[in-house]
């Protein structure tokens, strides 16, 4: 017997944290609303039953507007689970209980979970569980996904609720509304949950209007005072919630926490933004500095190993050049990638990220975007696929597509090895500065592209932003470490798969037809054949070939360079060509994984094509500019 259990609730209340605790998974958890954007499934067995959990994106109301919210609504409506857990934040239970009342209208088998009870206790908030149960008429469990409190009780409650379903009808909205609801029910097919849909119709929900029977014209049936009715319905729910909480929750006045005092500085009118840039600088500096000794050590190690094996026969050449030198040159930069994820982890876990959205919102007006999309783009410093996915949380379709299209210009961590390699060769004395300049350029190019895309591809107006700012949480080392490992291990996997394969392919193209001289290799032929395109930028054939191979994944640029020159240490690049190269790499083409994500998230081939064409042209123009200006100066 499989019992399906859905997890719904407001954003950021700890649904995924609970899911992880319940099934022993390590899904993406962070302290900002809108982390989960798709349904995530996982199973576990308990007392000889199989529990199949479905974690869902968060929402405030089942009148969904953004894509991620629609995922949750459609799931509850079209494939209702056996048991639905509504997760409520103990520190701000009102909104969660509102959603609970809405969910009960779907006639589901519901358990109310008050999560983060550890925080509530610390703040002197107490719940009377049995009176909550008697007013809400559903089982109530108080849990903490951090301490594990209430988790076993929740498991037992799931089994009990499954065996003895109860689907209470809690609220009567009064004759005016109830009559309308009853009247509207006949406009829907029997296959649907008619009461839910007609109530939603009275609330003016667009989705309910779409589901009307074909011959029903929405404009002819809807009441003229609909927005009044919608408010009456919401008022009725909130009145009920406030009444229940007055009886079942006690709250001693809480003092200002030190975190709130810090917030005064972080979101300060004048110094907030400078502090943000200072922190960014610190984070990238940390990425650079914290990993430096390790990077050097690994590099030397691989170099020794290559020398030891030599490359006299075809076999030893494949091992030492193709595999150790090719893959090793990328692996040696992995500590930097982990360091960056460590810094990003602190930003995401502490609750600072959405504050940046708040601070930057005004600046985003001119780009016809919101601070929320700024925050989404920041995630792209880890991996562009993350920001393309996270864009689902943006309500406005135009904003979402713009954000997706500019995401590739945010310099992802896969580009770190490339920059570090080039900087190490061309700017050995100004490495940290050059590294930071690349990030500034990346931000500027992203903003510029948003402007251009908004002008040409998607003309639009500015859009509203309603965003919750979660409370600060002290990021625990174990949480940040898990985050870092979850995100960073992806690169280890990549090194063992795509980068390994690509390195071997590059090795073949170098070894044949003439193993003695790389100038006569197939790789050189490809590079020389296309060199004329890049002649204005002053690129050698090695650079041209590396760029072509690197279009699969940026790290392969490093691996190719290392092989062309027989080790990173032997590469020669003058500062001007190096600068033009880095600028070109910053934008030139989204990696395959990002292109695939763009295609699936926009559901069309048009956007990945636009993305490739646009990014190739803009980076060519910029690199050309850099090399012209560079030649004048130097």
């Amino acid at each position, binding site marked *: 017997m499989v019992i399906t259990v859905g997890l719904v609730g407001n954003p950021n209340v700890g649904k995924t944290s609970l899911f992880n605790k319940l099934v022993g998974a390590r899904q993406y958890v962070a302290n900002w609303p809108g982390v989960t954007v798709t349904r995530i499934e996982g199973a576990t067995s308990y007392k000889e039953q199989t529990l199949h959990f479905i974690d869902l994106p968060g*929402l*405030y*109301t089942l*009148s969904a*507007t953004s894509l991620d919210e629609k995922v949750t609504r459609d799931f509850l409506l079209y494939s209702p689970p056996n048991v639905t857990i509504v997760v409520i934040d103990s*520190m*701000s*239970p*009102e*909104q969660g209980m*509102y*959603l609970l009342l809405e969910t009960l209208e779907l006639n589901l088998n519901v358990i109310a979970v008050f999560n983060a009870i550890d925080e509530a206790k610390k703040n002197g908030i107490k719940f009377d569980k049995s009176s909550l149960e008697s007013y809400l008429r559903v089982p109530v469990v108080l849990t903490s996904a951090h301490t594990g409190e209430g988790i076993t009780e929740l498991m037992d409650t799931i089994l009990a609720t499954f065996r003895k379903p109860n689907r209470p009808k809690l609220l009567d909205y009064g004759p005016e509304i109830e009559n309308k609801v009853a009247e509207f029910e006949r406009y829907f097919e029997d296959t649907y949950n008619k009461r839910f849909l007609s109530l939603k119709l009275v*609330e*003016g*929900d667009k989705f309910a209007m779409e589901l009307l029977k074909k011959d029903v014209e929405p404009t002819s049936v809807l009441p003229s005072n609909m*927005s009044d009715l*919608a*408010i009456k319905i*919401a*008022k009725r729910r*909130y009145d009920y919630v406030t009444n229940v909480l007055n009886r079942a929750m006690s709250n001693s006045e809480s003092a200002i926490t030190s975190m709130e005092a810090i917030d005064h500085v972080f*979101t300060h*009118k*004048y110094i*907030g*933004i400078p502090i943000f840039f200072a922190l960014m600088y610190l984070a990238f500096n940390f990425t650079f500095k914290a990993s430096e000794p390790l990077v050097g050590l690994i590099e030397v190690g691989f170099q020794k190993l290559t020398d030891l094996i030599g490359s006299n026969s075809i076999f030893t050449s494949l091992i030492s050049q193709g595999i150790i030198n090719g893959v090793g040159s990328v692996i040696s930069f992995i500590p930097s990638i982990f360091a960056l994820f460590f810094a990003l982890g602190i930003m995401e876990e502490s609750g600072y990220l*959405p504050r940046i*959205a*708040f*601070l930057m*919102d*005004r600046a985003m007006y001119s780009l016809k975007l919101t*601070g929320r999309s700024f925050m989404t783009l920041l995630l792209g410093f880890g991996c562009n696929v993350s920001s393309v996915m996270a864009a689902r949380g943006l*309500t406005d379709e135009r904003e979402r597509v713009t954000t997706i299209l500019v995401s590739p210009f945010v310099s992802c961590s896969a580009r770190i090895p490339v920059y570090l390699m080039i900087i190490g060769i061309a700017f050995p004395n100004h490495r940290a500065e050059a590294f930071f300049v690349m990030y500034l350029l990346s931000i500027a190019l992203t903003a510029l592209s948003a402007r251009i895309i908004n002008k040409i591809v998607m003309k639009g107006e*500015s859009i*509203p*932003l*309603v*965003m*919750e*700012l*979660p*409370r600060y949480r002290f990021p625990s080392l174990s949480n940040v470490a898990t985050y870092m490992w979850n995100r960073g291990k992806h690169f280890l996997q990549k090194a063992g798969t795509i980068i390994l394969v690509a390195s071997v392919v590059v090795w073949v193209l170098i070894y044949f037809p003439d193993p003695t001289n790389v100038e006569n290799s197939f790789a050189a032929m490809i590079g020389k054949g296309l060199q004329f395109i890049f002649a204005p930028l002053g690129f050698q054939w090695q650079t041209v070939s590396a760029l072509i191979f690197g279009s699969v994944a940026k790290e392969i640029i490093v691996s190719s360079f290392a092989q062309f020159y027989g080790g990173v240490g032997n590469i020669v690049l003058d500062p001007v060509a190096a600068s033009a190269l880095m600028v070109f790499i910053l934008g030139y083409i989204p990696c395959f994984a990002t292109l695939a994500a763009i295609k699936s998230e926009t559901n069309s081939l048009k956007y990945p094509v636009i993305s490739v064409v646009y990014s190739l042209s803009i980076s060519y123009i910029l690199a050309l500019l850099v090399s012209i200006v560079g030649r004048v100066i130097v």
Partner: protein
Amino acid sequence: MKLSEAPIGAQVEVLHIEESDITPRLRGIGVLPGIKIEVLKSAPMGDPRMYRVFNKVISLRNSEAELIEVQVSEDSPLPLTFVSPGSYKVEHIESGKIARMNLSRLGIIEGAIVQLLDDRRVKTANGVHDVGFGKLRKIYVVPCKQERSPEIKNAG
């Protein structure tokens, strides 16, 4: 008054909401007629601003906050620049240490009773002072109950 015009630090009560694309979400969060909202702070250039609804903090652009008609709650602290002349109790002072010290020398400390005069000067236990607009804005007060005013005179 519109929510976008409510002074920072004030507690307001929602009167009416104009329908727009985001009203369903606002209703879900609890922005409804009769509900109290606290104005917390503003981002650079005065937009967007942070508000507290029940115990959740949300960010709203002024263009959306304009659609929400509110009135200041009776017991809400307000900056001295925002109130009409009369007698008030200082609820809190939104400033750094130095500014606080300067104000305390004038007799303006949290809990003190002050009187705002018609010419926007402030009468405290130790005299009448011209505090200046910048500082007045940082002093949050609640109106004094009528029956308590004789006590002040005795104390002064």
